[in-house]
């Protein structure tokens, strides 16, 4: 097991090194760049040259990359130029990561709360109207472009009904104390209940928009897994033994069906951590997705580089965790 983890971690280092080179080259091969973004209309050939010199962009690319690696090894990834000028890119990542985790957890919890029971019920009544409708229903959310869904949610729940806020993480009128960067948790820790409640209200709409895809996936996997397990011999044995339905369902069907579901939840959470670019953008959610969109729009390469590398690491780590969880849960895999 330990060797397996070590090997995977080594592979991760390899992936990150290769990715850092690719990303570095790739960003610099994009047309335009930081200098244009910073100067705008004031860009003249002379100002361009001065700024490129000041930023070291006039150096050959391998020199730039080497500089980048040297800095990165000291934990310094360079100052942002567009997302939050002057702040180190890694600090921006650390500062925004809690926002993304908060939103991802909220969405995944929503998806679980609805997806698992619905998937279970659909499987129990396979091929019924209930089953068919919930299959179609779960997939509607996948088919709606998320920015359009976001508009609908905001329009009805925030603008028309005034139930929920339009965007952001917390009302600007609330003077909240920041401890961890997780606004809900901060509110609870500091017993500022109003700020915690306000943060939850801000989570609902983006959480819903973001939950559509994990919900559909969790629903589908739960349904399939329950269908699978219901046909297994031990369930039939249990039935033939005359165990009550409740015991069969609770102890045998649901629990065994959860293995693929847990895996799926892990992978989906990983996906949410790196993939909420559009949702965060349209809800002005100050997380990594928004930072990704902004750093791209404003050609803030320092931030974009860090984000991409951290996304890759997150991705690999989540995969690793899922595999480990698998091995822990299912001893058969360990022995292989």
């Amino acid at each position, binding site marked *: 097991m330990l060797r397996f983890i070590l090997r995977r971690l080594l592979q991760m280092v390899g992936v990150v090194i290769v990715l850092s080179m690719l990303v570095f080259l790739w960003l610099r091969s994009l047309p335009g760049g930081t200098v244009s973004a910073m100067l705008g209309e004031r860009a003249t050939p002379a100002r*361009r040259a001065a700024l490129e010199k000041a930023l070291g962009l006039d150096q050959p690319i391998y020199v730039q990359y080497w500089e980048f690696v040297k800095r990165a090894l000291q934990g*310094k990834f360079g*100052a942002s130029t567009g997302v939050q000028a002057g702040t180190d890119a890694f600090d921006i990542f650390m500062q925004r990561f809690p926002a993304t985790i908060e939103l991802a957890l909220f969405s995944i919890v929503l998806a679980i709360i609805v997806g698992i029971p619905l998937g279970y019920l659909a499987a129990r009544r396979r091929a019924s109207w209930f089953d068919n409708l919930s299959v179609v229903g779960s997939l509607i959310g996948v088919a709606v472009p998320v920015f359009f869904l976001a508009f609908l949610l905001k329009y009805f729940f925030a603008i028309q009904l005034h139930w929920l806020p339009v965007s*952001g993480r917390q009302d600007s009128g609330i003077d909240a104390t920041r401890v961890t960067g997780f606004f809900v948790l901060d509110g609870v820790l500091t017993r500022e209940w109003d700020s915690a409640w306000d943060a939850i209200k801000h989570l609902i709409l983006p959480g819903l928009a973001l939950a559509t895809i994990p919900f559909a996936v969790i629903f589908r996997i739960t349904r399939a897994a329950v269908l699978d397990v219901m046909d297994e011999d031990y369930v039939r044995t249990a039935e033939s033994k005359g165990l009550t339905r409740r015991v069969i369902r609770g102890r045998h069907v649901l629990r065994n069906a959860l293995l693929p579901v847990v895996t799926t939840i892990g992978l989906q959470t990983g996906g949410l951590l790196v993939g909420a670019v559009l949702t965060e953008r349209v809800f*002005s959610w100050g997380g990594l997705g928004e930072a990704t969109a902004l750093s791209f729009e404003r050609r803030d390469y320092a931030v974009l580089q860090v984000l991409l590398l951290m996304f890759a690491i997150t991705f690999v780590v989540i995969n690793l965790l899922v595999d480990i969880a698998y091995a822990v*849960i299912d001893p058969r895999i360990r022995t292989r």
Partner: protein
Amino acid sequence: MKLTRKATPVVLATTLALTLAACAQSNRDSGSGSSGSGSNNKDTITFGAAGAPELFDPFYATDGETFRVTRQMMEGLVGIKPGTADIEPELATKWEASSDGKEWTFTLREGVKFWDGEPFNAAAVCYNFERMFDQNEVAAGGPAGYWADVMGSFKSDAKNALYQGCTAKDDMTAVIKISRPTSKFPTALSLDSFSMQSPKALKAGDANNVTKQGEGFGYPAYSKNPVGTGPYKLEKFDEANKTVTLVANDSYWGEKPKTKKIVFKIIPDESTRRQELEAGSIDGYDLPNPADWKGLKDSGNQLLIRPAFNILYVGLNPAKNPKLKDLKVRQALYYAMNRDQLVKTQLPEGAMVATQFMPETVAGYNKSLQAYPYDPEKAKSLLKEAGAEGMTLNFAYPSDVSRPYMPNPQKIYEALRGDLEKVGIKVNVSTKPWNGGYLDTVDNGGYDAWLLGWTGDYNSADNFIGTFFSNLKANDFHTSATSYGAQLTKDLEAADSIVDEGQRSAAYEKINQQIQEDYLPGLAISHSPPALVVSDKVKGLVPSPLTAETFSTVTVSK
């Protein structure tokens, strides 16, 4: 089979969520957080901003989002008269130039103090100017851009700088020497970048210590903790919640701010700003999309239209397309464009056809110039005379940007392109994202013709036509490839150095006439007024052509 462990994470997550929900339920509904002190007005203005301020030391800033914030906190020697582009006394009560225009004497306002209690006096003024002048290599290359624009160079290259030193003649009189007379003085001192900041705080915060951090700039501690003289002070910048809070400066020398707090809420998405306003969670935002103007007014908001202080032009590059070297061809393009229709159908209310490269409020604007009329027949015959019938024009627009002078580049482009095609010009459509190669290609001379524009920084002809054409060696219009380029540059420099305002204006008027009639380096298209939008509860906000609105006179009723 051990089954218990599998469900644990799910149970944990669910429990956590339920616990949190339960905690929250035991609470009151979230309040607006603003319980006023008995008056009918709210104690907070909440304004939607498109981006975070880069930093809070305006000297190193170059973008409007930063200046909107620092303008509430900082003041310069010279201010801007609300609602106009004209200057008025601010921290200096009056100023006077020597007869050769090289020595400016500023009489300072009495009784002004920085927030940290430091007195504002001539020593402080000179400290500020010396501080701005003395920039390290890194700052000089980028962040100190406005100084580089106005003053030419820094202390390391002192002899080429416009700024030649500051002396405190007495406690309340500061004298600034410049190397040559220029139209930039004293108007350029109204730029936010040249605001006066507390010498003590500047020193303590190591304000000049700009460093290169990777491919960006690192700023010193001072930039997060500025000290000025203005009506508002920085309370906090909550980066996690993306809000900047300013609080009234109770010891402000002038009229006390009417509202206690300003919150700038950063909402990068344009349509989300609109939604926030309609939902009532912000009181206003800047630069609403002209497509939204009507809807905003219909839903009861106030649209504050600023006088246009910008210019949209079609740049032409004779070095890239030699046909453009012929004045007749350039005139033909101008005659071919139905700009009246463009302004009516594609530009926001209040937009005007341009007759020259500057708006009419600028001294030096030539009132006698007439717009080139829409005359496709004349265009065709001019093209024929020049032997350029059916010429191909590689004409570009930026695909993903909205600027105050061109709210929707693509639509403006399509209209102009249609006009050009009608007179037989083959238009080769080019487009790139603004930051993604468009500006680069324009600067590298990669297009024959392109859409671009300019919003004035301060009220001077030099800030418009000087910016465009005076650098002979490297300007986008490639005037160096023309017969008139050198002359134009010389005339512009000469006009800039005329001390007498009347004579100077006359000189600029003449240059404007020559540009339009004899040179035509590019085609000035239009001026579009940018707008601000605020809810019907907001009073006292005066739109400024320089986008230099101050919020200290603003109230928001409950």
